[in-house]
């Protein structure tokens, strides 16, 4: 998922503060719960509709914040005060990315033409992870257009070993071939 720079910065601030105060696990749980809440269409509508005033917005969010740690509550309050509702919508993804980053992990996909078994998936994760110097958390995604082979995408890196990728490489190579003249 795309995380914009502003959301990443806000999430980083909350993460850093929670880690410093030793309440990271509580805040992580809060953020995960808020992520589910803010993904609900009725809450999202309230957060993103400019015609709804700040007080109504605050009221709608207050219900989601019940029982949350004071840091989480302050964070949400500040974001609403500053008019940064979009940060709340993307908070969960940004926080997850930050947690993975600290743990030296990256999420990604192994794209194949047919489903692969978990053992193969684990093997690809281990081999490709070694190449990247990171621990990979991979999911299998079936893309029939690949024809055969596999394409691994982790973060902003891609290793294309699919048949369609090789055919594309051959097509490009043939386009660059100089004809005798």
């Amino acid at each position, binding site marked *: 998922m795309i995380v914009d*720079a502003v959301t990443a910065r806000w999430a980083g601030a909350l993460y850093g503060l929670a880690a410093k105060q030793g309440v990271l696990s509580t805040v992580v749980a809060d953020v995960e719960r808020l992520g589910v809440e803010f993904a609900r269409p009725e809450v999202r509508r309230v957060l993103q509709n400019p015609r709804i005033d700040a007080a109504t917005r605050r009221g709608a969010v207050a219900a989601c914040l019940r029982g949350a740690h004071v840091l989480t509550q302050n964070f949400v309050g500040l974001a609403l005060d500053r008019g940064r509702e979009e940060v709340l919508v993307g908070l969960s993804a940004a926080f997850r990315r930050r947690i993975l980053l600290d743990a030296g992990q990256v999420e990604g996909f192994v794209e194949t033409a047919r489903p692969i078994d978990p053992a193969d998936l684990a093997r690809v994760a281990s081999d490709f992870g070694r190449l990247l110097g990171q621990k990979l958390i991979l999911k299998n995604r079936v893309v029939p257009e690949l024809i055969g082979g596999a394409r691994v995408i982790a973060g902003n890196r*891609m290793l294309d070993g699919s048949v369609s990728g090789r055919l594309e490489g*051959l097509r490009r*190579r043939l386009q660059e*071939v100089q*004809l*005798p003249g």
Partner: protein
Amino acid sequence: MELRPAEVTSILEKEIEKYKGETSMQSIGTVLSVGDGVARVYGLDDCVMNELLEFPNGVRGVALNLEEDNVGCVLLGDATKVKEGDTVRSTGRVISVPTGDKLLGRVVNGLGDPIDGKGTLGTTESDLRPIESPAPSVVEREPVKEPLQTGIKAIDAMIPIGRGQRELIIGDRQTGKTALCIDTIINQKTTAGGDPKDPEQVICIYVAVGQKQSTIVDVQRRLEKAGAMPYTIIVAASANDEASLQYLACYAGVAMGERFRDEGRHVVIFYDDLYKQALAYRQVMLLLRRPPGREAFPGDVFNLHSRLLERAAKISRDAPKINPRYKKGGGSITALPIVETQEGDVAAYIPTNVISITDGQIFLESALFNAGIRPAVNAGISVSRVGGSAQISAMKKIAGGLRLGLASYRALAAFAQFGSDLDKATQQELTRGERLTEILKQGQYVPMPVEQQILIIYVANAGRLDDVPARRVPEVEKAYLRAMGEQHPEVAEEIKKTKNVSDAGRAAMDKVIAAVKIQLNTTPSKTAAKA
């Protein structure tokens, strides 16, 4: 070129057989937005400035804005084939163009792809050069001292251009700026007979930016007709090309020139024109949301032109010892940028920028052009800061003071319109100026070798034509040059060889002009006596 199917099949077979399809790690990104020829891409962590990016459907782009969470890039192809969410791959190489001999005689676009329908270039991977490269350093250069003959009397005599110089050609529309470039290209045939393999042959690169396609075709046909294409490359980014290609074409052209320069060759490059290039750059930068400055140009529009023109230089003979990129020293790139002015306003933003970067300017004036004085060079505000060191000694001696004399004549002529009561010295100056003006007029596509220029400028500057009616000067010039060629060819040969004129040569010129004047019955007294 005839396409032979058997050859194509064999190439395909060979390529398929040896294709390994190696998988390598690639940096990827996702298109966030696309529009107006500009795309914003999320990801591409390792992307470098000017890196070539691959979009789906064979569209290419160049990374120009590296921001915290996205990369701003200009698309170099059909933007309608790119959509939000598309995967973008980095290529790991900065934008490069093919260079070398195989480009000579060809018309290519800003990416170096041939567009003249004459087939592929036949260049290899090793011929590619990045379009942006650092200008030669101080120690690698030497002063400009060899002349670059344009074949245009007014320029070679008054505003000489040296190899390695940057001389701006500036003027309103329809004042003969492009014609001046074409004449200069045609005249380079005199350096080695137009043989591109001869190391003495000056290579010409004509970069057309934002021009009409018809103008580019016209230039190509003119050069072909004059036999000048074998040593010329045309880099064309016409008005219907993407703005990004228009602004990159100049850098592509100079990268092609640098290859020849590094091999010790002499190159002259024409940027036609830099004002349109600045407009294209402004468009791209505004779309990339760079902050606009004066006249909405981005802040680095000065650097856009200065880094381009700094790449024109005369390389020292010892340069290969300092930098291994030079295979042979002594090469040069002469840059002749063109800037189009509006209503003769040379004090506008882009003209003043380029004037301050270049080593002089040739100002072409609409009023002179419309008065039939062509090339319409304004001697008063045209200048070459390299000056006499870019002239052969014969021209330096004979044409010395010509520019100032002509400038003072033009000022005097304007003043003299208000009264007829002029002293003898003033009348003399007006008479001389009028004849000099006639002598410096020159037809299009007929550049004149420097030795012939010297022959005619000598007689005009020495006052030998003062008694010839101004309207008959072209006739006398023609007859005189013919007579010199027939009776005293050794004078032109001497100038060509020794770059000097001896006293005997001067005497021969005086003798021939006197005879021609009598033969054509041009002097007023003789005409009157006959009547």
